[in-house]
């Protein structure tokens, strides 16, 4: 079977993330993805998978590829995208992360609301503790945990000056055996020769990190896959595709 190019956007925030716009509802995200012609999306809220069930169901109905994810803020204050092969696994990770989240209440006025929505975009709850804090789980431990669940980790926007692998740890730890990283959409190779040398042997992912609907990608970043299967995307990230 030949590989085809699929347009993907693997870093999108819903209204569950305090910084995510309230228009980032499950239905709006799925419909915007269809309008923009995306083949596979991932919703990756900060430290929580609470809106994944609704998006998963809607994506399935719309025949849109969906990769469940969570953007974990590790102990080192690094944002790491954790991708899981299915919803069940993602919710298992969600449970582990929630246990390790500091019990600090969210201030909605300051950070924004953390809304849980159902498939009808009805608000069925809120998360009380602030989701953007660092959880008590190291980068290495998160990788081990996610890979045991047949998922993959992808350090997010590593070119940024905060919450990034390079800013916080100085360089990519060699014993992490990373195969892929995410660069923010405005980073141009050539901007930073040191950064470029650090990532020259790695697969580069570009996603929107959308907090508003209009920020979601058009058909601009492609993965060559046999089909729109979450496991295939995970294998690409892990560098273990057949």
């Amino acid at each position, binding site marked *: 079977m030949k590989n085809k190019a699929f347009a993907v956007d693997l870093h999108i925030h819903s209204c569950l993330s305090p910084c995510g716009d309230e228009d980032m509802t499950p239905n709006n995200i799925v419909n915007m993805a269809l309008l923009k012609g995306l083949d596979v999306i991932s919703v990756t809220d900060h430290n929580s998978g609470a809106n994944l069930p609704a998006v998963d169901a809607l994506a399935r109905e719309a025949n849109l590829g969906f990769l469940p994810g969570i953007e974990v803020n590790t102990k080192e204050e690094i944002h790491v995208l954790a991708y899981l092969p299915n919803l069940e696994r993602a919710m298992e990770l969600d449970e582990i992360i929630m246990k390790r989240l500091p019990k600090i209440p969210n201030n909605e006025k300051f950070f924004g609301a953390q809304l849980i929505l159902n498939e009808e975009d009805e608000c069925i709850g809120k998360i009380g503790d602030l989701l953007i804090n660092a959880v008590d789980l190291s980068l290495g431990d998160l990788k081990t945990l996610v890979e045991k669940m047949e998922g993959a980790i992808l350090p997010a926007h590593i070119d940024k000056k905060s919450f990034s692998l390079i800013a*916080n740890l100085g360089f990519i730890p060699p014993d992490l055996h990373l195969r892929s990283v995410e660069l923010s959409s405005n980073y141009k190779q050539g901007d930073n020769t040191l950064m470029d040398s650090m990532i020259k042997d790695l697969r580069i992912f570009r996603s929107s990190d959308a907090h508003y609907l209009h920020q979601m990608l058009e058909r601009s970043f492609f993965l060559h896959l046999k089909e729109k299967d979450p496991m295939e995307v995970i294998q690409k990230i892990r560098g273990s595709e057949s």
Partner: protein
Amino acid sequence: MKTYSVDALLAHEKFQLANPGVETNKEIGSVYIGDLLSWVMSHSEQNCAWITVQTHINIVAVAVLLEMSCIILPEGCTPDEDTQKKALEENIPLLVSPWTAYNIACFLKEKMES
């Protein structure tokens, strides 16, 4: 500014050595505080005592690269196991203290000036 030694620091009850077996007869020439390793690598200096809440193994590489005297983890932070091992291998004293970075820096300033 005079110097102070890692040995002298360890004689004080508020400082514990997390990697016994490491050489501690090192002079501390200055103090640096910072947690973003990319920033620390480009701004700190040789022979400093570096105070950081990062406990990841990469702190050892930074200390070796800059030829620091020691790393001090404040506020009861505990180093990751591989960090402890690596610091012993690379001969970087790794200290822990219940004090804040501010308290530690004030204490060192006083000692280095007396």
